[in-house]
């Protein structure tokens, strides 16, 4: 049996074994994946980076626990970026099942800021979490008039006017931009009602499945950036120099994909070598 015949008849269990090894390695060996974030992700990052301390930004965590794996890392990295830049962060959710999860995220990141940046953003001064209200389209429109229409109070029941950072903050005119992290069609409402009617500067983070549907909005300039799926999340973490769960998962993904690609290449090489060898033996006959 020649070498390439043996390769062609390679037992699939070798594929399984190599894949297993390369999926497990990244769990123990942490190293940075060299990612090259595409423009649409860099646009989101640069937008936030270019804001000045004290600027207001609205982050809408419009996903449910089902999309947690892909969107939570973006939320974490982005919130930390905003807190570190001392932006005033308004957060809310338009997903019914996501209210508590979003609240925890907003607070957890604030807590971890103490460790990483030496200060703790204060609720009510540095950030506010407005909670969940039904009818996303109406909420988005209502906030265009005044935040107090859909959200007379924040998640904890404090009236907006008695929250220090919300004083004088009336509607989208007072904030620099909106970033919606969503797994579904809430994004369409943000485009139609938020950007379409009030010209809000808008960016999205979407799940890997849905992201393709929202690229046209990026191309047409209705949104200024888009972060797609686990890869986008890892890229965002990379830009923020804040590797988290998405980077971990991406490390495994890169390895797994590399394994599959290498095997495909090996298979084809063996196939071509075998075909040439066969042609040669036929010639010599």
């Amino acid at each position: 049996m020649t070498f390439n015949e043996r390769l062609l008849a390679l037992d699939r269990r070798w594929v399984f074994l190599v894949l297993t090894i390369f999926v497990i390695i990244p769990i123990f060996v942490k190293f940075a994946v060299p990612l090259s974030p595409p423009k649409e992700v860099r646009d989101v990052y640069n937008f936030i980076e270019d804001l000045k301390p004290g600027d207001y930004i609205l982050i809408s965590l419009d996903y449910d626990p089902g999309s947690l794996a892909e969107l939570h890392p973006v939320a974490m990295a982005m919130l930390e970026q905003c807190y570190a830049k001392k932006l005033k962060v308004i957060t809310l959710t338009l997903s019914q099942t996501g209210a508590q999860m979003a609240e925890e995220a907003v607070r957890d990141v604030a807590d971890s800021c103490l460790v990483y940046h030496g200060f703790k953003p204060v609720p009510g001064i540095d950030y506010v979490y407005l909670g969940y209200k039904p009818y996303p389209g109406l909420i988005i429109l209502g906030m265009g008039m005044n935040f107090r229409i859909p959200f007379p109070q924040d998640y904890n029941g404090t009236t907006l006017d008695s929250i220090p950072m919300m004083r004088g903050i009336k509607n989208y005119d007072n904030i620099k931009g909106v970033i919606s992290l969503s797994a579904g069609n809430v994004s369409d409402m943000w485009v139609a009602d938020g950007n379409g009617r009030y010209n809000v500067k808008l960016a999205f983070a979407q799940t890997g499945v849905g992201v393709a549907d929202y690229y046209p909005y990026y191309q047409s300039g209705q949104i200024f950036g888009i972060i797609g799926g686990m890869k986008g999340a890892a890229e965002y973490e990379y830009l923020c120099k804040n590797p988290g769960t998405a980077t971990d998962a991406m490390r495994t993904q890169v390895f797994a994909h590399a394994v599959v690609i290498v095997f495909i290449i090996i298979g084809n090489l063996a196939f071509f070598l075998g075909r040439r060898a066969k042609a040669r033996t036929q010639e010599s006959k």
Partner: protein
Amino acid sequence: MKYIILLFLTCLSLCLSQAILAQTASSDPPAEAALVPSEPPAPPGNLTLKDLPNDDGHGIAVKWDLSPDDGAGAKSVISYDIYRSLSPDAPDSLWKKAGTVVLGVKSYADKGNRESDNDDYLPKKTNLYYRVYAVGAGVRSVAAAAGPVQAYDNWFNTLKVPELIFCVVFLILTVRFINMAKRGIDLYVRPLAGIEAIDEAIGRATEMGKPILYCLGIGTAGDIATIASFTILGRVARKVAEYQTSMIVPCIDPIVMTIAQETVKAGYADAGRPDAYKEDSVYYVTSQQFPYVAAVNGTIIREKPATNIYLGYFLAESLLLAETGVMAGSIQIAGTDQVSQLPFFVVACDYTLLGEELYAASAYLGREPLLLGTLKAQDYLKAIALVCIFALLALRVFTGADVIHKPFDMPWW
């Protein structure tokens, strides 16, 4: 516990920050953003009510002219609230809120509930009255009651005309070609690779003395793909009986199992060997997707069937089954209507019936003129669909998008 503490701390820090800020903020200008109820916007005008067409008689179509304050000014409208009542001068508490729409919208289809014990019950053939409020920032306009209006049953849904036309054309074509087939007119169909493979595969199983595994997918007996698979199963069973091979049919649904049993039995009877049919060869595994896959994979690896046939409705199990089949060294034939799973079958199986080829397969296998007739009808309707696409696109190119958009923007679609 930790959350309670955290919540407590959050509240505490909030209170503290309030206290601190209360002192510093005293010099701040008054919070201009505060929601001061503005003047109420002007009410919407010209409220018209009609029975909602194409419904079960529990709906009213409400229309109005936008309020002059819609979309502009300090007292701009944010939304419109629609209320319904049984009497024009009922007190506010007896007006039921039927719905809310955002600014700029000037109609609302009020689809009530048809059960009289439901909170949102909208009675049929009864006088109803409506009010529409323009809602501004914290205030709403005045609203006058309009009505009466009554809701009626409708006997034909005019929005479904396109489907009706296509269905009727299809029926006519089918009947016409079946009649042609009955009269003995030869209907040509091109050869299909996967179909010939089925014949060969059964022959191979006979040579190897090994069974054939036929998997109907994870659909219920109500899924068309499963039904198409039954029609193929009958023919395969017949050939299996003729070749005197055995077959294994694991099913995911009891009804699927029952119909498959009848089908296989009939196939054996057609081949003239009804006694060779074994009831246990068509059996129920479980109704859950992944346990089913585990069991079928086990069967494949242990029985090492000469051929695996996967036809029907498949989801993620497509590749799970097909790769296991490769491990067992079986020839594999697959087909499904699930576009998302076709790539995996194409990659892992020897022959794949793509999409509608699954539906055509029974006609090919049986070669019965009547079945070929429906196949022809299918081709003709496909041609009609193509012509429609061409014509509409041409119309769109030559007349501009508006003309073509108009019919397509109707609620038909």
